[in-house]
């Protein structure tokens, strides 16, 4: 029940005491206090106001006890002496934005940005984050401590970026949200293929950001992309836990409400006339969700959209995806030509999807020996277990 208030509470207290680490610990303590008091004394009229007020006192107590950051303390004391707004006041949305922009600052280690956002913004415990990223808890704890220390020592300001920096900083934030989702959607190397809780967190973040920044089409585009992708969650795994390819999924198991919302948001974002990579990816996802059967998919449109996406993300992965779309609309030979031009890229060598895509095209061209070699190359890269099971099956069905 505290997670709904976590983001706002950590943001408000960080603003008041000037230190993310102290604020976060204090909010944690306030939640523990609430757990002890509320059942007996009743839930306060404004749980959020209560948590912020209690955390603030705890944070100031700690700063006073540690006799540190004398200036901050004095500043905070002055604020404390000032009249307080009525109970139930909510933290300004600027503080909430400032918090996520701080956690996703490009001067922080990328892996730390994701962890810090899940901890400070989403309120996941360090143990939960460590489990999600398959690292030992002390490793994750150390990563988070180091990131918070850098924020303090390097003078990373707790505020919404200046207008001229906003575009670049926003793209760093969206990247983190996207990484949280993909980590949940296809857990690299993990036994579980879909970690629903991470997908839910990413969608929650994207939703909140859309509400905070309604005029930013890429934010809306990202939310649309995540909804359209997550709508297929139940259809992506067979009852045995095996991966089911898009073409073979039972489309009646797709979440219609999520698709409708995603399509509406994608359209709304694109109408603002400022396209970007997330909006284009949402449009691609909408091409799939709009097709009644796999055979109805508009692969021409998808190939065109991937061609657009390459302009924003000139990566071999995007080129490989475009090759698959071209193969679907113009035939496997045309797709294979594109795929073979990008497969020399070192960045793709360790990407099982490339080999899987090649294998599928070679299969359709009847080049069986080469197809088997490509499947084997994919298996050798040790994709997640359910994907491995799929490949083993695929290699033997002709």
């Amino acid at each position, binding site marked *: 029940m505290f997670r709904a208030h976590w983001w706002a509470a950590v943001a408000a207290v960080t603003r008041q005491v000037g230190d993310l680490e102290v604020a976060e610990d204090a909010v944690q303590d306030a939640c523990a206090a609430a757990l002890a008091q509320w059942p007996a004394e009743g839930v306060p009229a404004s749980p959020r106001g209560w948590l912020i007020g209690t955390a603030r006192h705890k944070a100031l107590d700690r700063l006073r006890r540690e006799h540190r950051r004398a200036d901050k303390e004095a500043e905070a004391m002055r604020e404390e002496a000032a009249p307080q707004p009525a109970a139930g006041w909510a933290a300004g949305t600027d503080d909430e934005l400032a918090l996520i922009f701080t956690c996703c600052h490009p001067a922080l280690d990328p892996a730390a940005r994701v962890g810090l956002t899940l901890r400070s913004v989403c309120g996941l415990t360090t143990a939960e984050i460590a489990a999600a990223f398959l690292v030992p808890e002390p490793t994750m704890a150390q990563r988070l401590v180091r990131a918070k220390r850098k924020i303090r020592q390097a003078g*990373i300001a707790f505020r919404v970026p200046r207008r001229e920096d906003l575009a670049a900083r926003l793209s760093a934030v969206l990247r983190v949200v996207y990484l949280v989702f993909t980590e949940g959607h296809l857990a690299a190397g993990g036994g579980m293929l879909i970690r629903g809780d991470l997908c839910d967190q990413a969608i929650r973040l994207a939703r909140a950001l859309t509400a905070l920044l309604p005029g930013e089409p890429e934010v809306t585009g990202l939310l649309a992309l995540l909804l359209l992708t997550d709508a297929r969650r139940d259809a992506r795994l067979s009852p045995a836990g095996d991966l089911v390819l898009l073409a073979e999924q039972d489309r009646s198991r797709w979440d219609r409400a999520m698709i409708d919302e995603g399509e509406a948001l994608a359209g709304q974002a694109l109408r603002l006339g400022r396209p970007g990579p997330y909006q284009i990816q949402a449009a691609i996802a909408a091409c799939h969700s709009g097709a009644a059967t796999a055979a109805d998919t508009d692969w021409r449109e998808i190939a065109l959209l991937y061609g657009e996406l390459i302009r924003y993300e000139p990566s071999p992965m995007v080129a490989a995806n475009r090759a698959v779309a071209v193969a679907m609309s113009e035939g496997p030979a045309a797709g294979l030509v594109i795929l073979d031009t990008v497969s020399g890229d070192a960045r793709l060598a360790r990407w099982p999807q490339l080999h899987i895509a090649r294998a599928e095209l070679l299969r359709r061209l009847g080049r069986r020996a080469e197809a088997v070699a490509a499947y084997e190359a994919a298996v050798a890269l040790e994709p997640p277990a359910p994907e491995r099971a799929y490949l083993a099956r695929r290699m033997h069905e002709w």
Partner: protein
Amino acid sequence: MKYLFLLYGRPDEQLPRPGTEEFDRMRAEWGAATGAMAQAGVLLDCAPLQPPAAATTLSVRDGETLLTDGPAAEIKEHFGGYTLVECADLDEALKWAATLPVAQVGKVEVRPVVQVVAPAEQPAR
């Protein structure tokens, strides 16, 4: 907050000789970058350094001073100069660091400076 920009150039970089057109252009580029910092009131100090070969690295172990010829670490780029600025926060410091010509070819490390208060200046508790 004070930030020190450590300027790392390429070790093979041949600086132009005084009197050449390239030298004048280099001076003009650096003058423009640091001039803008001074104009904005963020520049505290800046200077180029003699080459790494002129460096002596010192350490004291068990009361004994050890000297080694050359820079502290063998790295691809060499530490060629510094710029000291006073900025509101990291974002502002990064913005100024990016205006330095060396950022185009080498690297700029942005390091926050710890404010050390001399004992006499410490406010009475």
